């Protein structure tokens, strides 16, 4: 009997600690700064336990029934804590608030447990023995779970399922208590039914835990990760959800296979279709081969040079069955030449001329990337652009980052080119912008290749019309010695996020 009693102390102690560990680990995963997260979570949790201990004095009658329902509440709140927190992080802005609310709620409930239990047991043991035994098993439980957590629970069960399993343990202790203390309870049936409901709820949830925890373990790529690799330059992650393939570079979405045709058709065809005599094409960035796929629709193009920094990226999109199917094996066509090097330096080191130049770089999220959006870069690219050639630049969103967009347009202009800004709606990105730069006056094309899914001769001219909320705003140009664009960009996307 007494062993059984103290075993339940052991279990509830373990449960109490595990929720705290889960909250700390999860916060470190999602927010970083481990020291800060663990310190504040442990602090709040211990403080909340103090609140619980204090509140225990206000409970007078029906202590066992109260204890059982508190156990059930801990089971529910603690058991669902990590699922709740993952979902809160993915879908709300209030992650921190919910995190500390959960920690304080669980802490308060756990703080009630031991004082209540000691009062329930005080008739059965000497006070000296009682304190000694309860605290001994309390600390043993803490030791047990703190060893189990890193060795078994996180690697084997994952955070979501660990919480659910320990929630079931809490509910189990509650159910067991209805037998252990049955003579002290008025209506066992109702409590037992409650226990069984909670256990089946938590048990049922463990079946779906994989869905939530895979989202968690892959650091919140919402879908199944089918490929991920850290190259010397970036982290490449490819996800799949039904028929939707998504590419992330350093967790920035690059494309979704459902609508990338809109992005790439708009990137390539307005420029290239206007050049019936184009023979040579240069693509910088765009190691996914999707822009090249569009370029190869022109029989007049004799050679495509693709300059992308990351050899693993171009290798992947040349050889991986899923990815090379998506770009229709464009990177292994004989007309295509791949060069893996830094684009700015490569341009600086040769004098090749191109009829059509595509600058499809990641957004200017750092000063390093910002160099590829400067007047110096466009001036250099213009030297490689043949007399009647067209250059097109991926230029971020004119809606979400309006100043950034017009800053890029201004930079192309100050490099001495005529500019023709345009935009397109890509559902997975939102409104997206480009700018065409030419040496001379230029007109959008009258004809397009057949078989396009988005562009037509009717809608291509509309791309060059900007609604009022995206219209030009005065902006400085982006220079190597004053990268105003990086600062605009950071500010504007921060405003979007909040």
């Amino acid at each position, binding site marked *: 009997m007494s062993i059984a009693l103290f075993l339940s102390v052991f279990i509830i102690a373990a449960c109490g600690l595990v929720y705290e560990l889960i909250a700390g680990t999860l916060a470190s995963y999602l927010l970083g700064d481990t020291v800060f997260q663990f310190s504040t979570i442990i602090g709040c949790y211990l403080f909340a336990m103090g609140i619980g201990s204090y509140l225990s004095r206000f409970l007078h009658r029906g202590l066992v029934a109260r204890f059982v329902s508190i156990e059930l509440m801990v089971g529910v709140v603690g058991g669902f804590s990590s699922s709740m927190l993952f979902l809160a992080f993915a879908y709300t802005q209030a992650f921190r608030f919910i995190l500390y609310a959960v920690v304080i709620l669980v802490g308060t409930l756990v703080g009630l447990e031991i004082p209540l239990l000691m009062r329930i047991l005080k008739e059965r043991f000497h006070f000296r023995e009682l304190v000694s035994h309860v605290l001994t098993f309390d600390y043993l439980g803490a030791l047990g779970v703190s060893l189990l957590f890193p060795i078994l629970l996180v690697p084997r069960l994952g955070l979501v399922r660990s919480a659910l399993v320990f929630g079931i343990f809490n509910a189990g202790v509650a159910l067991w208590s209805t037998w252990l203390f049955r003579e002290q309870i008025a209506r066992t049936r109702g409590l037992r039914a409650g226990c069984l409901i909670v256990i089946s709820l938590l048990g049922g949830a463990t079946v779906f835990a994989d869905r939530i925890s895979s989202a968690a373990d892959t650091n919140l790529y919402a879908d199944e990760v089918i490929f991920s690799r850290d190259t010397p330059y970036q982290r490449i992650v490819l996800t799949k959800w039904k028929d939707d393939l998504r590419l992330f570079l350093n967790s920035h979405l690059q494309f979704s296979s459902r609508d990338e045709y809109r992005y790439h058709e708009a990137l390539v065809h307005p420029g290239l279709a206007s050049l019936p005599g184009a023979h040579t094409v240069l693509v910088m960035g765009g190691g996914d081969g999707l822009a090249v796929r569009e370029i190869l629709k022109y029989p007049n193009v004799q050679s495509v040079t693709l300059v992308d920094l990351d050899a693993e990226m171009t290798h992947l999109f040349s050889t991986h069955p899923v990815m090379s199917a998506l770009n229709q094996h464009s990177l292994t066509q004989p007309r295509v030449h791949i060069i893996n090097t830094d684009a700015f330096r490569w341009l600086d080191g040769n004098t090749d001329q191109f009829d059509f130049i595509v600058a499809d770089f990641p957004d200017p999220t750092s*000063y390093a*990337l910002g160099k590829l959006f400067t007047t110096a870069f466009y001036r250099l690219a213009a030297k490689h652009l043949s007399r009647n050639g067209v250059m097109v630049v991926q230029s971020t969103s004119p809606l979400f980052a309006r100043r950034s967009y017009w800053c890029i347009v201004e930079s192309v202009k100050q490099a001495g080119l005529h500019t023709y800004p345009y935009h397109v709606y890509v559902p997975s990105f939102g409104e997206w912008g480009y700018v065409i730069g030419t040496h001379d006056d230029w007109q959008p094309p009258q004809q397009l290749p057949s078989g396009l899914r988005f562009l037509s001769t009717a809608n291509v001219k509309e791309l060059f019309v900007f609604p009022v909320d995206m219209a030009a705003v005065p902006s400085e140009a982006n220079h*190597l010695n004053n990268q105003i664009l990086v600062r605009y960009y950071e500010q504007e996307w921060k405003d979007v996020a909040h």
Partner: protein
Amino acid sequence: MSSRRGFLLGAPGLIGLWRKTDRTITGGFVNDSFPAGHRLRDHSAFAAPKQQLRVPLVIIGGGMAGLNAAWYLDKRGFHDFVLLEMEKQAGGNSRSGENEVSRYPWAAHYVPVPAKGESVARELFEELGVYRDGVWDERVLCFDPQERLFINGHWQEGIEPHDSATAADRAQYRRFNDKIANFRATGQFTIPMERGARTSPLDKISIADWLTQQRYDSPYLRWYVNYACRDDYGALAKDTSAWAGIQYFASREPEDKGPLTWPEGNGWVAARLIEKLRRYLRTDAVAYRVERAGTKLRVLTERTEYLADAVIWAAPTFLAHYILEGAPAADRFEYSPWLTANLTLDRMPDQRGAELAWDNVIYNSPTLGYVDARHMSLDTHIDKTVWTFYWSLAEYPPAQARQLLLSRTWSDWKDAILNDLARAHPDIHQCVAHMDIMRIGHAMARPTPGFIFSEERTRWLHPLGNVYFANSDLSGFSIFEEAQYRGVEAARAALKRIGRG
């Protein structure tokens, strides 16, 4: 047996009792100029010259002052001169090095964009191709981000501490900037300094005392001013003339974008000048004695004795006393000793906060931080680089600092440098493959209180017979523009003297 022995030896390792090991870092001292300097000071025996040559003009000292004097002479069509440099490599404080990762500077690493009035500087840069049709080449204007500061556990953009500055600190920054703008408006703080400088009581006190008098007590502002003095003058604020401290801030327009810089710092300028002036330049040529011979001067080196009509003394002024007949001791000239180190990093260290900048400073460090040699690279991805680490030993009196410089081993300095960097980059020990250290005993002039408007300094502005002084230390501080101005002015005067001007 052997396995048991292996186990016994391995057991302490298993439980982690072996000493924690860092990777081995190669390197040593380079470009030491002490031996030649000490021979001159101690009047040691030098070999007698093997030949005598008559040449109208000799320039002694192949740093920026001497190179610019030669550049000016050559450009004005005067070719009858030689330029003597005692080291193997000319360039002085603008020397540079190169390894498989990058070129890198050994000391001076930038030139502020010359203002409109600095016509000679603009002429030089036009000739070197970085200034064309009124536009500076954007490849040599320092890229963004230029500066950052490690403070409160992370890097912030810009050197002026602002992340934890209070409203009161910011109010003092504003008041200071307004005050500086007023000084600028007087027209007395110019580059070159000689053009605007008027005797001022500001020179009588230190910039630290001036700040106190003006009720600037913000620790951040005071740190910033102290840093500026250590960086440009190698001296603490309490050892720097208030006039010179104000000159640092007031002599340039604040909106100037720049400065001009290159991976190898001012070594780029030096290398181009050396290339142009190769036929005049004699390296490894210590001018150990300059004597009067009637109206002429005899300049003695171990190879050749030059019989000259005039000499341009572009070497540090204090050396004249040891070499030039009749030159007085330049006792009030103080020089800061410096330590610079070039660290080759084969991977980029961890860090928190703002991106790697060109100039990277650690708050409250005795050192001056480091400059990233690959900052001016066009590459977007950089995984190896060279950092030039600067340390002016400003806390000590110069003589004591020089002793310290000589008495410590390379390994001592290496550890001190890595420990300093480890505050901002905890894993720096694992990232550095090689470290060369250069010790400069008399690196730059210190504008101590009273020096700028002292008779001692102004005395050297006049030629001593037919010897014209040209070192930047005549301005009280060592910066490129002062060296160029002094070199060109001396060349002008010397040309006049020998009837070619």
